[in-house]
């Protein structure tokens, strides 16, 4: 399956140079999980502070086991804040 992985803030350092620096299309085996997608770009799971799939938050406790679906948009943020 194919998914789009969008990385933000300091995590953008993990994107390959040819990606344009914002997101990458990943080809993953069926039943791949969020950690599988992160591993494809060597992003440490511990840095994935906020995770969204298709604009909806994934609870931190669910990140490790959450399976991805073809066409998913996975967005990952480090710890950030403001206001």
């Amino acid at each position, binding site marked *: 399956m194919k998914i789009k992985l969008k990385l933000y803030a300091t995590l953008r350092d993990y994107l390959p140079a040819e990606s344009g620096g914002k997101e990458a299309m990943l080809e993953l085996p069926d039943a791949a999980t969020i950690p599988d997608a992160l591993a494809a770009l060597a992003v440490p799971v511990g840095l994935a502070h906020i995770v969204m799939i298709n*604009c909806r938050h994934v609870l931190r406790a669910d990140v490790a086991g959450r399976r991805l679906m073809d066409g998913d948009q996975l967005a990952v943020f480090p710890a*950030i804040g*403001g206001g």
Partner: protein
Amino acid sequence: MDKIVRINLSDLSSKIEPVPAAWVGLGGRALTSAVVASEVPPACHALGANNKLVFAPGLLTGTAAANSGRISAGAKSPLTGGIKESNAGGTAGRMLAKLGIRALIVEGMPPEDKWYSVHLAKDAVTLQEEQELLGQGNYALVQAVQARYGKPVGVISIGPVGEMKMLTANISVADPESHIRSLGRGGLGAVMGAKKIKFISIDDTGTPPVMPKDAAKFKEAARIFAKTLLDHPVSGQGLPTYGTNVLVNILNEAGGLPTRNFTSGQYADHDKISGETMHDTIVARGGQPTHACHPGCQIQCSQVYNDKDGKYLTSGFEYETIWGMGADCCINDLDDIAMADRIMDDIGCDSIETAVMFGVAMEAGVLPFGDGKGVVRMLKDEIGRGTTLGRILGGGAAQVGRVYGITRVPVVKNQGIPAYDPRAVKGIGVTYAMSTMGADHTSGYAVATNILGVGGHVDPLSKVGQVELARNLNIATAAIDSTGMCLFIAFPALDIPECLSSLIDMINACFGINLSGDDVTALGKSVLKTEHAFNVAAGLTKEHDRLPEFFSKEALPPHNVLWDFTPDELDSYWNF
């Protein structure tokens, strides 16, 4: 010796008074709201002689505690019609505290059409007529006042917008580099303009630092407190690296970034105005991606943004301003937004209210969406000069909506709704509706728990748990706003228990008292109840604690969600 300084413009007198027993132990917002509640008739005209403008450093301001340098300003707001407290960094708070001034109360109105300035120094209060600096913008004014005294005195000032008493007028506070921080919201600059005070200067020469009663206990608590700020990933890494504007992309991803006058939750050009893009631009132009807005700030989320030629353009360039001019007005050029930010600081208008207003004005066809150059021109040539159109625009979003017959006007109690759509970030919507301040994200920042994973997670798209979350955050914030602490200490405070306990230990060591955590919560509740009672007496009813109708009628893409709280659900906020 702690004191209250009172300036009365009606008889041009000044007095130094002891702190009344009822106000001992109060600082910042707790003190400004106590003074306003006890001395300002709630039904008075906010721009009349019976309103009072109060400045107060926080309880810990002036000490060695990290991030404790905030100053609060309070009055009856001419924008909301209720009580107002706004706080900022800069150098003035620390200087007032070193002078022992717990509160500066400005009251009355001058008998003649003359303008004045106030100078505060060790054992001296001077009220004098001011002519030379009338009409000046804040940048030039700060330079001129500091040149006049030959030293970097603290400066609290208004620009032309405040002189003209427009409802968007803010009050500026000079920062350590003589640039501008803002007591932004609620039109407090118009109150200062009504008193005909152009600026207040503060010279703390000859005053010692504020010394805690138990220095050893204070030092240990301050060390633990500072460590929690460093240890938390948001205050220790996220905020210092990218500043507050890092929020553009995550709010866009969550579908809660109000766009094109609150008609969508996502902005196609979000990355052009994002914190990541801004960071790279600042670094490439030799600016400062990290900067402290007040002495002793450890988080340093501010920055210095240079223009294309590498020259200083603006600082304190915050997410809410960039969201408002960016996504809400569809201006995708950071340089245009930075220029607008610079001008708003200079002429002295609130960058949130003004940005929300321009979103409404664009919907009305006053100028096209995306017209950054048009915004810059209108700020300078219309609002800054007080033309007829400028005075309409300078009245804020609600006024522009009324003048042009627009129904999609994002305000609560006439104050513009900031950078988080309440339909898609429901916890902050409860804060907007219920805050004693009108729509104000800082009074109960539920975004932390709805979006940022701080203090746990409450689903931003569900109503469940949002009223309780907003209530608890508003109570905690009222207490934090009274300490002189930057609100961003709330990020570690929500996740690291030692942050709050060491903060309380610092207060206890400073004053030789023995507050508990429950006492601090009680302080927050007391502040909110005091403010709420003032608002009710001023005529703000339950029906004012509501969001505009369009939020419950127009579904917000991409989640296609509505604002769906019932009146009873919202009113349960006050069950404490």
